[in-house]
């Protein structure tokens, strides 16, 4: 396992999580893309050391070949995350068309309950004082 690839996985994951915690949709989507990249790269890390010949094409003569399964898995995962990212972008666009801003909104019912709870707490606080 190459230390550099492992480090890249870690950095991509960290950056992805950081972007995911932002309030604007476009950053969240970029964060998700970085997370997906880190997962795919991790699949490459677990497939064994770099530089081995591919399994098809007649390059593998007596040596160990590169494990094709994680590559297939990564390929599938890439296609899926590509499709989902496109869908997310269209959702974000729709959200921008409707709201004219790029922020994640609160749940209205949550806000109502938080409000009610807040009222009750402040009433109780006034009574105890």
């Amino acid at each position, binding site marked *: 396992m190459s230390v550099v690839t492992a480090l890249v996985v870690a950095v991509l994951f960290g950056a992805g999580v950081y972007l*995911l915690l932002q309030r604007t949709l476009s950053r969240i989507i970029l964060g998700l893309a970085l997370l*997906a990249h880190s*997962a795919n790269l991790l*699949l490459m890390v*677990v497939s064994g050391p770099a530089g081995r010949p591919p399994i098809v094409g007649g390059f593998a003569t007596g040596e160990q070949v590169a494990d094709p399964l994680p590559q297939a*898995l990564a390929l599938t995962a890439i296609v899926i995350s590509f499709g989902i990212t496109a*869908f997310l972008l269209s959702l974000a666009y*729709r959200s921008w068309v409707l709201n004219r801003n790029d922020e994640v909104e609160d749940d209205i019912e949550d806000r109502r309950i938080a409000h009610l709870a807040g009222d009750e707490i402040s009433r109780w606080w006034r009574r105890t004082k």
Partner: protein
Amino acid sequence: MSALLTIPVIVPLAAAALSIIAYGHRNIQRGIGLTAISVVLIDAILLLVRVEADGVQSVQVGAWAAPFGITLVADLFSSLMLVVSVATILAVLVFAIGQPGVDSGQPVFHPVYLVMAAGVSLSFLTGDLFNLFVAYEMTLASSYVLLTLGGRREQIRSGMTYVIINVVASTLFVIGIAWVYGATGTVNLADLSVKIAALPDGVQTALSLFLFLVFGIKAAIFPLFFWLPDAYPTARTPVTAVFAGLLTKVGVYSIVRTQTLLFPETRPSTILLTFAGFTMVVGVLGAIAQNDMKRILSFHIVSQIGYMILGLGLFTVSGIAGTVYFIVHQIPVKTALFLTTGLVEEGTGSTALNRVGGLIRRAPLVAGLFLLASMSLAGIPPLSGFIGKLAILEAGFSAQTYLVVGIALAVSLFTLFSMVKIWNGVFWGAAEDPPARLASIGPDSPLAIPAAMNGATIALVGLTLAIALFGGPIYELSERAAQSLVDPSAYVGAVLG
């Protein structure tokens, strides 16, 4: 025999393709959808009969030998789940066709619904961790579309949260698969069952808990459930109903499957029981605080997931048998409850408790259906929820986990309380602020509800009654399913040959 296992996946997918070709021709699309799901239902029943008689069935798609090829497996647990799920999917499809405005003007509804059906079937039948991921993505991608179909503002808002949470969960799933592959060199479930047992204890525990985390997000287990009551109520009712009945249960199915098959030596009993207790309590308390039928029921989805994890957490045959029976009961009951909500919404124009009232006179049929389904959910004898809860609680008593059993009993009481709250708000009393549709019809005149919607709901409630009526045989099947889950040698043998 191989056709029995592949039909549930291939037929809905092919039908989805045909349905796209018939884009804009609503009646053709409806015919394709109904035919495809009916075929799958018949197939699922045949598969269950076959598995019941001959034991675990498996097929290697593409004829690559077991650890490398794409494996489809059906044991009793997965074929039971498949039958109940497909029956529910069919009932909801009839309901959606009956409800004005669900598939009309939305030509993508039918193809996407069929892809979701294929995804659900594949996640029950797959014998491969990576194909489970693909099945999840099929189900989720179509659920994203169904949830946001129509593009109304609150749909986009809650849909965004739902998509983001699930994409994060899926990414974690890929990471989990990478770790599992890195540790063992295989993703075939049966092969993993053998190879994971040879790993050091620490690695086993880490993998087991990481997969529990991944599926826990999908199954909406405390503390990973926040997205669910927010996202589900905003979709059209048939969509919410099928999500409520199926999607979280697919997550629970995966938890049960991986915890029993992949990690036969790691038994994180205390952790599972703790999360089960919190899930039950937090879900039901959330439900009590709500004032809308859909939102109350959405919190109950979370609460009931706790019971399933409780049964699994005992890791005894009777506990897991209780879980299997409970999932079989929950899928139709939960869906039926959401469908009655849909009937109320269709008839009155609202599901808010204070805006609707007195429906017992105007729609006695809806009231009766709701009463049966909700009492079953609360666990009133002799309905199916009672049998499921009794089985789980008895298993809990014999495992001497009194605290979590006590919590489960208390939660049942609160469930009953919130069902009575809906009953008082919607079926008794008077509407304080009736919506336009309710106000426009006369004070005691019956509600206008299309027959197909009523019919689909009656069929599902009938299914829950049948699950209670045939409680003995179904519980016996669950027990046999649980035995083969606790001792996975038959499963492993059928796949690896």
